[in-house]
C-alpha cells in the first residue's frame, strides 16, 4: 500500500502554484469554491487509495489553525 507523500513532489512547483491561482482568476467566491470542490474530487479519484485519502484529510485538518 502506498503512503501519503508529504515531502516535495511537484516539479516546477512555482509554475503549478501560478496555474492554480490563474484558474481562479476573475471568478466570484462561489465560482472559486465550486472549482476547488471539483478539483478536490478529481484529485481524490486519481489517488483512489482510501488510506492515502484518509491520511490526506487528517494532514489537512491538523495543519490549519486550531478551530
Amino acid at each position, binding site marked *: 500500500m502506498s503512503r501519503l507523500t508529504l515531502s516535495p513532489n511537484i516539479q516546477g512547483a512555482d509554475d503549478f502554484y501560478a496555474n492554480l491561482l490563474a484558474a481562479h482568476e476573475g471568478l466570484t467566491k462561489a465560482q472559486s*469554491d*465550486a472549482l476547488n*470542490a*471539483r478539483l*478536490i*474530487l*478529481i484529485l481524490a*479519484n486519481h489517488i483512489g487509495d482510501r488510506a492515502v485519502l484518509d491520511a490526506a484529510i487528517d494532514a489537512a485538518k491538523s495543519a490549519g489553525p486550531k478551530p
Partner: protein
Amino acid sequence: MNKIFETPLYPYARSVDQQTAEPAAHKVVIIGAGPVGLAMAVDLKQQGIDSIILDDNDKVSFGSRAICFAKRTLEIADRLGFGDPLVEKGVVWNLGKVFFDDRKVYEFNLLPEDGHKRPAFINLQQYYFEEYLVNRARALNIDIRGRSRVSAVEPHDSHVDLTVETPDGPYHIAADWVIACDGAGSPTRSMMGLDFVGRVFEDNFLIADVTMDAEFPTERWFWFDPPFNRGQSALLHKQPDGVWRIDLQLGWDIDKEEEKKPENVIPRLKAMLGDDVAFELEWVSIYTFQCRRMEKFRHGRVLFAGDSAHQVSPFGARGANSGLQDVDNLGWKLAHVIHGTAPETLLDTYDVERIHGADENILNSSRSTDFITPKSETSRIFRDAVLDLSEHHPFARPLVNSGRLSMPCSYDASGLNGVDALTGAPHRSRPGSPCPDAPFMDGYFLSNLGGKFVVVGLNTDVPDQLDIDGVRVKGLHVDTAHYPLMAERYLGAVAAGVYLIRPDQHVTARWSEFDQAAVVAAVKTALGAAV
C-alpha cells in the same frame, strides 16, 4: 379514488375468544396487519405455528406508500407463496436518469445480473402488496381480526397479557409470544415505555400519486435543484395502473395543511409535467422523516419487527424491504423455539442480526439524505461539484446519491455462522450472506431452499436427509456441469463444495466435502447452541 381503500379487507367479526371468561390462550399474537405483520403470520404458519393478527383498522393502508420492492423481498415472497402476483402486477424498471438544474447529467442502467428468477426491483403500490398477502393468509386460514385494537400490553416471564378493544367491547388474550408490527408510531412500543431514538431530518416532502396518460417512459427520474422546484429535489416513478409517484422536496418552513391543498399541489405538478399534460390527483401526503431504531428489538416475549423497530428515510426503499428481512430472520427462529428444537436465546440473535441490518439501512439512508439535502454551504458546494462532474466524467457518477437501493445484508459477524472452510470459493456466498440465485433444474436454485435447513453438495455427495435431534435437514445434490452459474456463484475456482443453508436462505457454513460431524455441529451452532 380507487375503491380498494373503501372496502374492508378483513372486516370485524366476533371471535370465540370474546365469549370466554378466562383470557384466551394463543401461541403467537401479531399486532398489525401491514406487510410485515401479514408476512410474519404466513411465515410462521408455513413452519407449523398458528398465530392471530390484530389490527385496529380493517382495510389496506391508504395511498401508495411503499412502492419499491427489492429482489430480496420478492425472493422472500416466493418462499411465502405470494411472489407471482407481485411480479405479474408490478412495474419492472432498469433505467434511471439524473437531472441537475435544467439538464440531464447522466443516466444509469441497473443492468441486473443474469440468471436470477426475480428482477432487481419492482414498483408496486403497498395496497396491492397487502392485498396479495391477505389472499395468501386467507388461503392458509390465518385469523386476521380487524377493528381489534390492543389497548394494554402486560409482559410476564411466562406469557404476555393483552387487552383488545373491539366494537363489542374489550376482551383478554394471554399470548406466549407477541410480535409488534404496528408501524413507526408503534402503540405497543409506547405502552411498554420503550425508547426509539435517532435523528430527525428537518425537511418536508410532498408525495403525490397522479394518474395521467403521458408518454413518460418506465424509468426513475431524479432531479436536483430543478427549475420547477428551486433549491429542492424531485422524483418521478411509475407504478401499475398508469399511476405515477411524484416526490417533491419542500423544505422545512412550510405550512403543511396549505401545501396539501389541491390548489397548491396542482400548480407545482403542472410546472413539473408541463401545462399540456392532463393528470388527476389520486393521493397527496406530506411527510417528514427520521432515521432511528429501538435499542433492542427483543423485549422478553415481545418482539418488534419492521417500522416499529426501526425507521429510515424513504431514499433507497429500505423501509418495507428491511421489514420483510426481519420476518425472514425471525420466522424460523421463533418456530424452532416454539417447537422446542432451539433454546429461547436463539431469539437474541434476531436482535443482533437485524440490528446490524437496521444500522446498515440507517447509515445508507442518512447518507442519501445528506446528499439530497445538504446540511451546510460546504456540503452543498461538494454536492453540486459531484453533479457537475457527473455530466462529463464517469468517475463522479457513483458519488451521486439519490438513494442506495436496498440490498439484503450479510450477517458476517453472526454467532450463528459456522466455518468458512472452502478456500477459493466466492466472497458473495460466504457464511452469513444471502444465497445468490441461479438457474437450476427446470427453474431456479432459491425455489429449492427455504423453510428448513438444507445441505447442498456441489459436485460431491451429501445424504438425502439428516435428522439432528428432531431437526430435519434436507440434502440437495447439484451437478454444476449443467448449471454453470451455480458453479460461478458457489464454487468459483474450486471444483466441489458443501454448503449448509439456513431456513431463511442465508449461508451458514461451507466445506470442501461432506463431513457429518461438522454439519451436525454447524446446524447446532445455527440453532443457537452454546458452543
